[in-house]
């Protein structure tokens, strides 16, 4: 690999295109870690937001008026306020109210770090969209199917898990994939609370090496490819889950 890296140093000397994140091992490791953080952040948020979506859609079908209202209020609140302000609110406002714990060096640090707050805030944000998406899928399942499940002795929860959800999931997968892709793009917001994800690390690199142009271009290409790969994977998945004869 070394000659390959050296080639980029040569490229810098010859043309001035300074791709430090390839030939400089320190920057390379940093950026790689940032990339992994982005993936990890996206992955955790993805899982939690889907869980929130499924649970929320189930609660929305509840017989209690107040449960439905609370879920509705949650959705409307998170959908109609800026995610960045939510993030600030969670991290600075709620984070300041949290108790502090002693760390291994004897200093005091907040019980939840910035990464955890980013996961919480972004999951709730994406989850609010997922609830609506899952609800639309659940609504698409015909009443007679649910009744058939009930007549076979399923409880409401069991019918939801075994009958409604598998069908609903397939119906709402296109909308869901849209939202999940959006979520990956939204993880860049974690930059604002200094989570060392790709954008943050890149900004460190360009302030160290003054190669803003190269880093920015790299970032754009990197994000577009991450999103592109994710979209492709979800598309394949959608295809394999397709219900024969349903939809176009």
């Amino acid at each position, binding site marked *: 690999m070394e000659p390959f890296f050296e080639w980029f140093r040569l490229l810098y000397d010859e043309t001035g295109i300074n791709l430090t994140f390839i030939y400089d091992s320190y920057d390379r490791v940093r950026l790689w870690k940032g990339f992994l953080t982005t993936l990890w952040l996206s992955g955790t948020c993805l899982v939690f937001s889907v869980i929130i979506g499924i649970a929320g859609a189930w609660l929305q079908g509840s017989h209690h008026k107040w449960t439905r209202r609370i879920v*509705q*209020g949650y*959705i*409307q*609140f998170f*959908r*109609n*306020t*800026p995610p*960045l*302000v939510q993030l*600030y*609110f969670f991290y*600075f*406002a*709620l984070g*300041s109210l949290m108790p502090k714990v002693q760390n291994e060096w004897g200093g005091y640090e907040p019980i939840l770090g910035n990464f955890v707050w980013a996961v919480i805030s972004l999951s709730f944000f994406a989850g609010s969209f997922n609830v*609506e*998406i899952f*609800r*639309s*899928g659940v*609504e*698409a*399942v*015909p*009443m*007679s*199917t649910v009744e*058939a499940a009930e007549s076979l002795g399923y409880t409401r929860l069991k019918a939801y898990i075994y009958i409604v959800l598998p*069908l*609903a999931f397939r*119906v*709402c997968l*296109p*909308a869901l994939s*849209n939202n999940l*892709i959006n979520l990956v*793009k*939204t*993880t*860049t*917001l974690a*930059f*604002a609370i200094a989570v060392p994800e790709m*954008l943050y690390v890149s*900004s460190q690199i360009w302030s160290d090496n003054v190669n*803003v*142009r190269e880093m*920015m271009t790299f*970032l*754009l290409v990197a*994000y*577009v490819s991450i*999103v*592109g790969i994710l*979209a492709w994977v979800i598309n394949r998945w959608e295809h394999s889950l397709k*219900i024969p004869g*349903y939809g*176009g």
Partner: protein
Amino acid sequence: MFKRKIKKFKIPLNPKHELAVLLSSRSSLDPAPLKDQKGRQPILARLRKVHLVWLISIFSVSAFAAEVTGGVDQPSLIKTIFLWTPFLLKGFGFNLLISFISMAIGTLLGAVLGVFQISLFLPVRLSSKILTQFFRNSPWLVLLFYCMFMLPFEITIGGFIIPFPDWIKAVIGLSLPVMANVSEIIRGAINSIPSGQWESAESLAFTRRQQIWLIILPQCYKRMLPPWMNLYSILTMATVLASIVGVEEVMSLAGQVLAADGRPELLVPIYSFVLAWFFIYCYPIAKLTLRLEKKYALKT
């Protein structure tokens, strides 16, 4: 309320127990639901003014709680927030200004790009498609950074120096993703027009330009309006991103307020204050979008 009453009388004509066929879903959030015309409408979110009262009461309770825990010698929290309100409102106004201008620029460029996407000339169609997908798939914040660092701070055209302040760069940075999304909205709307419309227009000897201008686009406006409004509210919420790159809008002003007062108990009230404004501004738009969507939905 009224609508629910009508439904009751419908029962004999439209029994609930139809064949067990999966219905196609239609989410109010899906930006491309236009394709499927059999879609069912989601239940309108039933929120009333009562909920606004709830929001305000939660806010005041949190402010009160902060006041109780805060020191005695300082001015009361509500008074402090009241004092800063005009300052913060100015920032919020700036946010709205940014959103208006970006939306205008994005819509104009996006309209052109969207029509190019259905061009019969392959290179135009392909390149506009790639451009749209590229800007649609890149994060807003990265695009904003890109414009912030890549655009010069002033341009010299024939001796004239046109300054490029930060906020104009932010406007440009925000209008790029808007452009791509508008382009997709237009393409989706045009695709959702039944092909019979194109064919009958052609059989009536309309030229292609006439077909687009006189037949297809007039039918698209209605379909485009709800997703376009949705996009606007997303854009409004994205304007706070400009604070990260140093534009003096409501978030950075809120940060300044917090720094100036240096009272940690102000954190929760100030941030919820800003959240509440955005909610008050964006919620009616979201509600109107849903209503329009319902109104313009095809009756099947």
